[in-house]
């Protein structure tokens, strides 16, 4: 049985079908990449499966139980955590307070929550900034803070929404190592990224969506040479593309 099983998920914003009859499964222990051009519906998928916006149709099974219709906080309790593409730290609180708040989900005493938060901050290498205010961090640090906060809720499934967006190449490499490390520690990951290159070496499997529909579900090496995917990313320019050459 898949850890997360999404069936026939559909969401319309007015006349626009942002997500259309989307089905996919996430297996325990894997890193699943979810890619697609801007506006493909990736963030919407995350918002749907974490309960932030209601779906028009579809089932979302977490460990076999349907969680569609639940509120975000109770989905967090069930073991699914997300990060936000546009980071939403608790700006006027310190880094440690930010992460402790998330750790309170599994620990009722402040002391225990803080200890858990410190462990997570060590892992994402933000421990030196524990006392800094979240608003004073660089973008790269704020992205790591997003991950730390989600991680502190002790999730089974972690949904990362463009954790590499806006980072420079060194920071990207750094973050890739972090994500693989989190996966090794037993957390299943769904990783949304706009650029395939960033997640090429880390994902076990990649799903490509375009206009809210799934157009590919295959290992990353195959995705980069798949004509349908290339067409989706490059549009008409696909004609001028030389066969066998990776798209990014």
């Amino acid at each position: 049985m898949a850890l997360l099983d999404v069936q026939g998920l559909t969401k319309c914003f007015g006349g626009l079908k942002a997500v259309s009859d989307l089905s996919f499964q996430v297996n325990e222990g894997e890193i699943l990449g979810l890619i697609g051009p801007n506006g493909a519906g990736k963030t919407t998928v995350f918002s749907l499966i974490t309960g932030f916006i209601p779906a028009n149709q579809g089932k979302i099974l977490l460990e076999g139980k349907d969680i569609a219709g639940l509120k975000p906080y109770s989905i967090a309790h069930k073991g699914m955590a997300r990060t936000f593409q546009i980071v939403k730290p608790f700006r006027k609180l310190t880094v440690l307070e930010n992460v402790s708040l998330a750790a309170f989900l599994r620990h009722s005493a402040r002391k225990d929550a803080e200890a858990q938060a410190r462990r997570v901050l060590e892992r994402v290498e933000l421990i030196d900034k524990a006392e800094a205010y979240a608003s004073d961090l660089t973008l790269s640090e704020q992205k790591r803070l997003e991950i730390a906060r989600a991680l502190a809720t002790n999730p089974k499934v972690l949904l990362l929404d463009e954790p590499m967006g806006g980072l420079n190449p060194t920071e990207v490499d750094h973050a890739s190592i972090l994500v693989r490390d989190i996966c090794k520690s037993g957390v299943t990951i769904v990783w949304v990224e706009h650029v395939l290159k960033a997640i090429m070496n880390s994902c076990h499997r990649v799903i490509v969506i375009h206009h809210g529909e799934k157009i590919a579900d295959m290992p990353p090496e195959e995705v980069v040479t798949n004509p349908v995917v290339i067409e989706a990313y490059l549009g008409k320019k696909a004609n001028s593309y030389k066969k066998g050459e990776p798209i990014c």
Partner: protein
Amino acid sequence: MKKTLLIIIGLIVLGIAPIVIRSPFFVHLMIMVLMWTVLGASWNILGGYAGQVSFGHATFLGAGAYTTMILYLKCGVDPWYGIFLGGLVAMVISLPIGFICFRLRGPYFSLSTLAVAEIVRLVALNWESLTAGPVGLLITTLPGVSFLGQPINWESKVPFYYIIAIITLIALIMTYIVSRTRVGAYLLALREDIDSAESIGINTVKARVVALALSAFLAGIAGGFYAMYLRYVDPDAVFSIGLSVEMLFIAIVGGLATVGGPLIGAIVLVTLGESFREHFLSGHLIFYGFFMMVAIRYMPDGVWGRLNVLFKKLRLKKDVNHGTA
């Protein structure tokens, strides 16, 4: 260590103040300061910690005041239970209000609390069989109570002083507990970002309702005391927008989301209000408003916040001096 010492000194001062300074005006002033501390603390829990700015907190003050008054006059319930029940009734009333207003966020929430407060005031004005409408309710005698074998003299203000002093301590201790526990942390998360709060497992609707209920409880108790102390309530005296705004001012001037802030805010604003009233008669509100503008412009973190920053600077300086010596 220093903190414990400060608290002990504060408690002693609180305990002996009316014995040392016997002027009835001064005792009255201190009673007002303490009552407004409780009201500021009430507003601070919802507005300061949870970041939900209410313009309608007089609703809960009024609910407490009327509950205590009506229970005493119509059912003969001792006001000292009545004050507590006033807090509970205010808390119960806050639940449907939260249900209505918390569907809205930010400024829309604030405006809805204002609207609800006006509705409640109009209901109190027109439900004459319960509230006697604009005529108001009046107590002529308070029940005979004796303390340590002595009958309490209600004509003196001193017994009222000790009652409100105890209520103030309850309010400050409650704020302290909230600020130190998971509940308080959740309220701060609400203030900062509701989506992020939900994403880490906080039931933001429940957290807001809890903040409002605690807040309403404190305002209701203060309201019950207010009714007993002044021995008179009418809708304009306890449900007016002016009272709601005053609570907000005290919490902001004192320092939002701090335990001691409302006390400082009440000391500053109540004494300032009284002396402006004395010196400028009709124009006092202009000066009061002007002071508020200056305070908010130059001390956005409130007096308490400002003092904290100063203390920190002083301590740093001391450390540096030690370092070079």
